[in-house]
């Protein structure tokens, strides 16, 4: 005997996206209330990979926390090294030698390219294109080899030191980087843009999908390519210049449309701008020491300090409260995708599930950075 299944036309159901789902690239869970294929309400549920980095900071010395910074956004680890270093150097009043600043810019920008390449690969993979991933990983591999030769690691770099870097760059690295830039420059239009950017299937999936307005970005504190894809020209490297960025000539790519395609284009253009910065930095690279004289145990004076850098996903900020001892009294880490994701609920409302996944991919989420 079977009971007929009846369904009211206005009935909704709850769908769990994640915590284990290939499109979330990590352990993110989104509780979706669905009306058929349409999203009525989306609520991201975080914390599946929460490790309490901020508490760990209060348990060791300033130098000991450097390792942790690479384990938040593992795809752009050097920017996090940089943000933390910059804040502590500001607090302790450390002057950084010029060669160090150049090495930092070169490695951070190389890392930014590798991060954007991986995002590109994963994003196209989410939308059903497998082949581009292999091209992007081929190029990314070259960057990992280069960075491995100077930092000693391939992913979670701990390369920066207060007032210096761990290892000097040599001629092999410089030649390898130049060769890589030549290679990527010829491959970008031929493979990346011809194969994917102009592809009609991709365009139909992401054009006019997930439109975010300037005002929404402001209310939710969105930064990085999300903000620049909505027509706001904001880049910490330009608006609050740090390190030696003012010495370089580069553009901040801005697209007005605010859709997933605009965010895609911002990142693709940023790869080119990063290549420009690296070339100029290699040309101007000064000689000099790679480490300033810094006390073994740092004790920044009492007070609170803020430092921000432009990571691949937006503004990474550190708020450091020092009580004059060798351990940070409080270290707040402001991660960019945490804020970028917080508007997901508002934008995804009324979207088709498949479109919401394309939108989520265009936000470039790295979950360990959201959960910290």
């Amino acid at each position: 005997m079977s009971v007929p299944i009846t369904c009211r036309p206005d009935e909704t159901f709850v769908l769990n996206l994640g915590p284990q789902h290939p499109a979330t690239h990590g352990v993110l869970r989104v509780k979706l209330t669905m009306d058929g294929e349409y999203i009525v309400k989306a609520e991201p549920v975080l914390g599946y990979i929460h490790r309490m980095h901020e508490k760990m900071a209060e348990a060791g010395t300033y130098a000991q926390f450097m390792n942790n910074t690479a384990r938040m956004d593992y795809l752009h680890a050097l920017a996090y090294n940089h943000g933390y270093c910059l804040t502590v150097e500001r607090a302790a009043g450390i002057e950084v030698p010029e060669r160090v600043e150049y090495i930092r810019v070169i490695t951070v920008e190389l890392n930014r390219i590798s991060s954007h390449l991986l995002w590109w690969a994963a994003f196209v993979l989410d939308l059903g294109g497998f082949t581009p991933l292999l091209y992007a990983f081929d190029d990314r591999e070259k960057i990992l080899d280069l960075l491995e030769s100077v930092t000693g690691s391939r992913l979670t770099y701990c390369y920066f030191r207060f007032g210096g870097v761990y290892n000097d760059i040599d001629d092999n690295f410089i030649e390898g980087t130049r060769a890589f830039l030549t290679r990527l420059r010829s491959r970008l239009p031929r493979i990346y843009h011809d194969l994917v950017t102009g592809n009609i299937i991709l365009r139909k999936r992401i054009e006019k999908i997930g439109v975010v307005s300037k005002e929404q970005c402001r209310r939710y504190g969105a930064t990085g390519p999300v903000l620049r894809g909505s027509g706001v020209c904001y880049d910490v490297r330009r608006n609050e210049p740090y390190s030696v960025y003012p010495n370089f000539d580069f553009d901040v790519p801005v697209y007005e449309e605010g859709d997933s395609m605009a965010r895609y284009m911002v990142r693709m253009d940023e790869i080119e701008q990063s290549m420009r910065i690296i070339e100029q930095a290699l040309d101007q690279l000064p000689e000099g020491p790679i480490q300033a004289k810094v006390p073994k145990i740092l004790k920044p004076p009492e007070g609170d300090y803020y430092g921000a850098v432009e990571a691949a996903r937006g503004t990474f900020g550190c708020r450091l409260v020092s009580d004059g001892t060798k351990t940070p009294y409080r270290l707040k880490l402001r991660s960019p995708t945490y804020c970028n994701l917080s508007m997901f609920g508002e934008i995804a409302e009324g979207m088709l599930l498949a479109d919401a996944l394309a939108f989520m991919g265009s936000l470039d989420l790295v979950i360990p950075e959201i959960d910290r």
Partner: protein
Amino acid sequence: MSMIEKTREALLSLYPDQVAASDDPEKKEEESAQEEAAAGEERQPGVMITDYMTRGTHLDLLCEADQVVAAAEIMDRLGYFLEAISGVDRIKEKKMEVIYDYNRSDEQACRVVVRAFLPREKPEIPTVSEVFPAASWHERETHDFFGIRFTGHPYLVPLLLPEDADFHPLLKDFKP
């Protein structure tokens, strides 16, 4: 008028009695020079100009807990966005501190810090999530870590900690 000046003036409206006193520019410089000297003493509520090169911020506002919403409305009107909210457990002074970091995305760089102190045994502060939706997650996180209650918050449940968490790990007297 620079954005720093404009913001400072707008924020001074929270302190009607101080406006007249600090209109004089010489006095203002004196104030910022005194900043270092007065570090040891208890700071009075008010707006302070800070040195960007050493602090990383341009303006620093200390206000009462019930003024943070008014401050957020001023910042919203001037086109700022909320970058972060952090808590600090000042266990020695038996206080909690809530720090709001505001920033703007146009070419007039100006970072503003708004801070308020709360009694440690009953940390309560009104929510600013109605002004800036960005605050919703930041406040939930601060509630997770410090147990600070953001009154009026529509959904103050654990965000990063497990949903049944009843501990606040960033308190200085937290025992795991």
